[in-house]
């Protein structure tokens, strides 16, 4: 039988809260350290302990990071999903299963590796048997697939840094699993791991962690937040970095953290911070943004800088709290009642999570308006290969904030909301400064910030706000383009779809269709997106949602003559995007479009 090298998917079915996550991360890290292009996806339930959880590891020499279309190697530990998981396997798959679970294993068309995981684990530590069970299957997999001890040990040492007894226990458990496999099986399946030369130094990093670090380097001064999956690790990341990066020798921090009573209060706090002249941010998910709507309108209308990070989960309502989606885009872009329009920046890689983390504050202070960072559960909570973070290439932009009296006195015709420079952005003074005090308000106001219901004042104010945001578009992160010279078909997408796009592209190419890619990274739409669409006969807008939200925005904002060229492919079932589904939908759509 021919071997299949570095091109298969491992699925590990366990129960939540059994400690399988650390074992799975050791497996992932050891493959990564062997130079194998690999990605891991944690499919976890909204639960603390007991419900089913799956960890999917995809090895791909092509660098594909999506979960793949099928499972090749199945690890069965969880009784609750046992039968379903087993039934869904294609013939020829590998099954590593816990014989101590007393569950049936009646498939004869698969490669079966029975392991008394619980007994082996108990023999090592009766007390910690549940935890050790997970490491035992990693040891078995290592032997079957060919993962080196060197890589495993390095991963264990990294995972349990400094905890000598935990390192020892895990290494022994790995050995137990490996020896069991050595003594009991002859390899019959084709799946093999092979070491690859490491060309670039890279490390694993979660998107949320990267956003947090970016915010720290962006000079965040107030983090106000309310815990919500899948964004909590952004806030916890910031809290974790403050002692090292934002605290003086006396142990005093220069970044405040307040866990708010709810998302409304978190929004109010960061608006208060922006009003007082500081850099305030919150991290939340869709339900939190829904609650913040009224405040978002206030920040837009009163022109107060503040930064919101939305780590998108599946909606509507409570939805699927631990699954991924790109469905908050439209809400962010037009958040709050009345006519509004907001700046949204959408990272697609961990490097960008860091970059947009610091940039969001500069954009927000420059334009005196709320800025939304949009990530999602897939990008935010999974580990991605990262080439390292790049230091901000521009100093902090504090915008048109007048801090010195002489500057203020030299200004002619100052008014808090007067467009002195003709760029739509007025100047502001800060509370406590004694300069041009006004009562900020969410009510209509004239250029001096005084309450007004005059038709001209309202009309001009709304027109200036629109103009201000409109002018920002080409100052925001430009789209990333990968263009085919003679491509007739363009694919526009955003965010975490970045991690699946190449596989989709290759699938399309296998059918003879070459497509160009355009990854949108900000709203309002950059002018380069329009020119990309113009260069292609047909453009597909690819999104992980039901309604095609980005497509909707494009259709409304693009010039009429190209609107009919733009087609939507939107699909979401809660899972991270699988390339095959989107590729097939794109093919269908292209066919329809050409008719």
């Amino acid at each position, binding site marked *: 039988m021919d071997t299949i090298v570095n091109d298969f998917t491992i699925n590990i079915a366990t129960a939540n809260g059994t400690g399988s996550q650390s074992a799975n991360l050791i497996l992932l890290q050891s493959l990564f350290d062997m130079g194998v292009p690999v990605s891991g996806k944690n499919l976890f339930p909204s639960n603390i302990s007991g419900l089913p959880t799956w960890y999917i590891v995809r090895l791909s020499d092509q660098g594909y990071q999506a979960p793949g279309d099928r499972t090749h190697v199945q690890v069965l530990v969880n009784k609750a999903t046992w039968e379903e998981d087993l039934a869904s396997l294609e013939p020829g798959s590998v099954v590593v299963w816990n014989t101590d679970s007393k569950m049936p294993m009646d498939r004869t068309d698969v490669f079966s590796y029975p392991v008394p995981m619980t007994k082996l684990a108990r023999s090592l530590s009766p007390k910690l048997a549940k935890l050790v069970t997970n490491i035992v299957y990693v040891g078995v997999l290592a032997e079957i697939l060919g993962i080196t001890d060197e890589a495993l040990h390095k991963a264990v040492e990294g995972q349990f840094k400094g905890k000598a007894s935990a390192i020892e226990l895990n290494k022994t458990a790995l050995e137990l699993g490996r020896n069991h496999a050595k003594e009991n099986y002859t390899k019959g399946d084709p799946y093999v791991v092979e070491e690859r030369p490491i060309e670039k130094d890279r490390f694993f990093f979660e998107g949320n962690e990267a956003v947090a670090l970016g915010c720290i380097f962006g000079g965040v001064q107030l983090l106000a937040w309310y815990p919500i999956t899948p964004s909590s690790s952004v806030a916890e990341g910031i809290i974790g970095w403050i002692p090292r990066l934002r605290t003086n020798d006396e142990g005093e921090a220069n970044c405040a953290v307040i866990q708010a009573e709810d998302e409304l209060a978190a929004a109010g706090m960061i*608006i208060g911070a922006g009003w007082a002249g500081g850099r305030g941010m919150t991290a939340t998910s869709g339900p939190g943004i829904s609650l913040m709507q009224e405040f978002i309108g206030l920040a837009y209308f009163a022109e107060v800088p503040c930064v919101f990070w939305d780590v998108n989960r599946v909606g509507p309502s409570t939805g699927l709290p631990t699954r991924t989606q790109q469905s908050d885009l439209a809400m962010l872009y037009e958040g709050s009642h009345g006519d509004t329009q907001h700046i949204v920046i959408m990272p697609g890689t961990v490097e960008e999570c860091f970059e947009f983390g610091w940039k969001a504050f500069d954009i927000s202070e420059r334009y005196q308006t709320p800025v939304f960072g949009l990530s999602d559960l897939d990008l935010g909570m999974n580990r991605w290969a990262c080439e390292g973070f790049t230091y901000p290439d521009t100093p902090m932009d504090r915008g048109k904030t007048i801090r010195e009296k002489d500057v203020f006195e030299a200004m002619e015709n100052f008014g808090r909301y007067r467009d002195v420079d003709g760029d739509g952005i007025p100047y502001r003074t800060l509370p406590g400064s004694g300069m041009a005090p006004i009562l*900020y308000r969410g009510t209509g106001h004239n250029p001096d910030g005084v309450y007004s219901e005059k038709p001209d004042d309202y009309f001009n104010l709304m027109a200036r706000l629109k103009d201000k945001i409109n002018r920002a578009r080409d100052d925001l992160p430009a789209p990333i383009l990968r263009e085919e010279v003679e491509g007739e078909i363009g694919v526009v997408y955003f965010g975490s779809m970045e991690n699946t796009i190449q596989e989709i592209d290759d699938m399309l190419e296998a059918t003879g269709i070459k497509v160009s890619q355009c990854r949108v990274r900000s709203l309002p739409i950059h002018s380069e997106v329009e020119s990309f669409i113009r260069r292609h006969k047909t453009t597909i807008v690819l999104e992980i949602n039901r309604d095609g939200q980005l497509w909707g925005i494009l259709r409304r904002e693009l010039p009429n003559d190209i609107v009919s060229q733009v087609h939507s492919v939107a699909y979401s079932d809660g899972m991270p995007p699988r390339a095959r589904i989107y590729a097939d939908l794109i093919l269908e759509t292209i066919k329809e479009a050409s008719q």
Partner: protein
Amino acid sequence: MSEKPARAIKLNVINEPKENYKGGPSSLCPGCGHDQISNVIITAAWENGIEPHRIAKMSGIGCSSKTPAYYLGQSHGFNTVHGRMPSVTTGAYAINKDLLYLGVSGDGDSASIGIGQLIHAIRRNMDMVYIIENNGVYGLTKGQYSATADIGSKKKKGKPNETQPIDLCALAINLGCTFVARSFSGSKKQLTSLIKAAMSHKGFALIDVISPCVTFNNNDESMRSYGYVKDNEVTLHMADYIPHFEPVTEVEIPEGHFTDITLHDGSTIRLETISDSHDPSDAMAALTALHQAEVGKKHVTGLLYFDSSKPSLAEDLGLVSTPLLDVDASDLRPSEDMLKQMNSEFLGR
């Protein structure tokens, strides 16, 4: 003929005329209790010698929340959204803890839509003065009952209120609020002393001011009408505020029993006891006084509860002594070397 000498303008301790503490003309109904409170705020800030631009005027939505336009015209202010002034204030405070945050709110703001934010600001012991202009009614929307309306209170039209009111002072005491007082918009002297003391307090100072609505809630059966309060007010004590720049020894000591409470900046609030001696450090006594007043259909006014021992939010946040607003950019953004070092640490992990 000789010219009349110009009348000397009275200045406060920082040489500011009272004029510099005034605001724009009020657009509330003539005779509104809120306007009296605005005047007291002007007097209190002026007499306390606070630089007007170092005050931040905060409010929510409602008749009361419009009043920041009518006082302290040299102060920045923020008329936020309904009931959410505490959170905006908390965020501003995190950035600039050196300003005096003066919040004005109403019973719709504080007892209904924003009761959660009020509770949590109290819980954090946020440094601010929080004045509730309490009239038991929604004025701007033309007279609906608020959550502080008394049972039996009657609108011009419709049924009398049958829902239990919320006593914000009792709530605050139960939450451990560190300064709780009740007053009446018509009691200028007492209210001035209380607001001045609240401005010197480090922590959350709540003053619930009964402020009759002349338009929608001034019928005599309402416990929040002007006539009713005048006739049924039980003053716990006469309060006299002695600012820190006037040493206590130089002040004429009033007759009778009195208690001095020292505030964090060294100023004193002197309570001359005229009823049973009320100890403001005794939460149970304060709650009892409120309960007895409720039973007797009266209002008890004065400083009900005071505790200077609790740390305020500033201490809890563990921040540098400079307000964050004034921290250098070089301290806010870690160095390039630090990022390089971290990148290499990530590689090794």
